[in-house]
């Protein structure tokens, strides 16, 4: 209650009223008659955005753990390629990477008859495998760098204690090293996930119909410019808010267990 009262100072109430007035004005005067026609497509696009986001984050993180590990403790013939991969991914625009994979591989594959006759061909002809691949590699590149720092940051004493108990190396990694690294990296991970959400609309440029592509279609079909874009911005803000909430809940749980 006290928090509530501290937040609602007079000037904030005035600002909230102005904001509400703007929202009402938008709802009354702008054109929303296209909404019912495109709602099913928009839901489908929203689902595809979330699906791509979740899949690429999970796969990218799985790839980032060995990348970080190789850079933190690996011998030079593993550390060097991992470092080079992260530098290249972080040093070039994601849009370029997506187009390289989609247009480059997409023009390369049909030249080989054995690929055309393989079981995978129906998937390779579509756009989304390239989108998922590009976003996964990008997330792995950024996260590999973060995981390197996290692995290096785990206290030596913890690992020595595990060794002193006679833990095998893999158990030590699974029980001590990885959990501590992940806990220290959770706040960064939340930010990176929002960055990944903001990267998903790029897949619309290679004909994957996500929520951004739906808004572009509304714009080109009906010549209504601002309404779909505003709604799109609101949708992304809600998604970013949900991600922030989820991660703060993860972080709290980690801390409660620690104490």
């Amino acid at each position, binding site marked *: 209650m006290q928090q509530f009262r501290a937040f609602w100072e007079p000037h904030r109430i005035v600002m909230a009223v102005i904001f509400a007035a703007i929202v009402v004005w938008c709802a009354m005067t702008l054109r929303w008659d296209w909404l019912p026609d495109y709602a099913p497509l928009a839901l489908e696009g929203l689902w595809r955005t979330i699906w791509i986001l979740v899949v690429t984050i999970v796969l990218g993180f799985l790839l980032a753990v060995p990348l970080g590990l190789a850079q933190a403790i690996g011998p030079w013939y593993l550390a060097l390629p991992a470092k080079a991969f992260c530098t290249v991914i972080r040093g070039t*625009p994601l849009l370029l990477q997506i187009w390289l994979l989609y247009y480059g591989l997409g023009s390369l594959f049909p030249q080989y008859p054995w690929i055309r006759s393989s079981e995978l061909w129906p998937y390779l002809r579509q756009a989304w495998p390239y989108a998922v691949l590009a976003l996964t590699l990008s997330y792995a590149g950024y996260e590999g760098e973060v995981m390197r720092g996290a692995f290096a940051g785990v206290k030596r004493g913890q690992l020595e204690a595990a060794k002193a108990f006679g833990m095998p190396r893999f158990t030590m990694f699974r029980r001590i090293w990885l959990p501590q690294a992940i806990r220290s990296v959770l706040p960064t991970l939340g930010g990176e996930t929002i960055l990944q959400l903001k990267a998903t609309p790029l897949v619309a440029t290679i004909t994957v119909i996500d929520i951004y592509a739906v808004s572009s279609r509304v714009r080109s079909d009906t010549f209504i410019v601002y309404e779909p874009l505003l709604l799109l911005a609101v949708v*992304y803000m809600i998604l970013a808010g949900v991600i922030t909430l989820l991660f703060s809940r993860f972080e709290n749980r980690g801390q409660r267990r620690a104490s």
Partner: protein
Amino acid sequence: MQAFFDMLGLGSSAELLSLSPPGWGGNLLRGLANSLKIALGAFGLGLVIGLFGACGKLYGGKVTRDLLAVYTTVIRAVPELVLILILYYVGTDVINKISEAMGGDRVEINGVAAGIWVLGIVQGAYATEILRGAIQAVPVGQIEAARSFGMPSAMTMRRITIPAMMSFATPGLANLWLIATKDTALLAVVGFSELTLETRQAAGSTRAYFTFFLAAGALYLVVTLLSGLVFARIENWARRGQPSLKGAR
């Protein structure tokens, strides 16, 4: 030179990338120049917005602070691609309304200027947060000392706060500059002829996708690595006189 490329089996790629007209190298370099122009302008505009935003967030009134919080939150939560579209349409609409009100015709917007305006607003939100953190890291005693000597607040800012915060701000600003160079690629979606769009056009008309996208990637990478060196020097310069961090741990 030609024989060397032929030996490697890259003869056709070298021909495609040559600078004179049958090759597309000149187009790529022109695109790179446009990209760098937009990135530099946007970074500069972002710094100016960021400096005012940081001062507003730290020293401004309640309303200013809340409005700036809304600005930074919204910009950082919405994808750059969506912001670019919104700001692009708003910008062209406003300019055309003004020109029509003054009795002129519809104006064709310069691509570089529009790119700078759009990306600058996005960069400003990030710069605000970076500079706010850096200003807060300046020891209060230094600013109090300046005040006790009777320095006006603008002079305190110029002579004390900004030089002292530089060493805290450079790592974040270096990151922001790299984001700026990579975000220029997004302007390809709106149709500005910067590096990525030039590359796609060259690749599309010659069907040599790998050659051109890899070449453009190499150009971006060179920019990134060179900027890394430059910013390392700037950070060294900003840290001059401070005790070395080596051996502190």
